[in-house]
């Protein structure tokens, strides 16, 4: 646990340093006027953020390890929606003392509008262009349209 805390502190320092460099390069003063955002004594926000991070890490492992395009898309889309719920909820609670809740909720609204939509578009184009499932005997093609756009696209090209 102690080693994990040390590793997490060092890694987060590198990410924070990189992002501060980006903000400085954009001409902004990266020193915060008030360091009012603090999670101390807010177990609800802490719990929500940890919940979301666990699900996003599980989604990344799924995208890395699953055998097939469709299964990877399933892991990415579903778990990202659940993890974003946790992280944006926790961030909205934690940003409440500095009156930034509306911006966090704006990002969350856009996120929940677009995450299922992009998953749908990727799945549709992959299915219609005929990406193969990794095992024929466990997959069911209800529409029989797997790869039905491939000939039309080949004629267009």
């Amino acid at each position: 646990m102690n080693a994990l805390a040390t590793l997490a502190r060092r890694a987060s320092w590198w990410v924070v340093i990189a992002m501060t460099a980006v903000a400085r390069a954009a001409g902004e003063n990266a020193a915060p006027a008030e360091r009012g955002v603090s999670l101390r004594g807010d177990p609800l926000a802490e719990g929500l953020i940890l919940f979301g991070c666990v699900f996003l890490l599980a989604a990344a492992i799924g995208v890395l390890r699953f055998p097939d395009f469709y299964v990877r898309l399933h892991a990415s889309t579903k778990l990202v929606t659940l993890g974003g719920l946790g992280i944006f909820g926790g961030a909205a609670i934690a940003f409440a003392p500095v009156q930034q809740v509306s911006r966090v909720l704006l990002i969350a609204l856009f996120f929940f509008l677009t995450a299922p939509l992009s998953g749908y578009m990727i799945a549709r184009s992959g299915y219609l262009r005929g990406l193969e499932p990794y095992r024929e005997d466990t997959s069911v093609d209800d529409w029989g349209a797997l790869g039905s756009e491939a000939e039309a696209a080949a004629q267009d090209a």
Partner: protein
Amino acid sequence: MVLNIAILCLAVSVLLATYRVLRGPSWGDRVTAFDFLTVTLAVLVVVVALRTGYTPFLDAALLISILGFMSTAALARYLLRGRVMK
């Protein structure tokens, strides 16, 4: 403490998704991993805004989210028909 662990988890997720973008055997895997990469990057920027207390990072997160969705939609359309618009 919690925010450091969160940033570590999200950075590891971004690295794994980058591996899948570079390695993915088919283009569908690459587009899937790219969509996941942009979403995770936006979430990571939100958590970094919490960690540093520098609220303009929230605008950066919104911009990353919008650009990620637009590019994913354009890639999906391009890979379906071989062109973005009629």
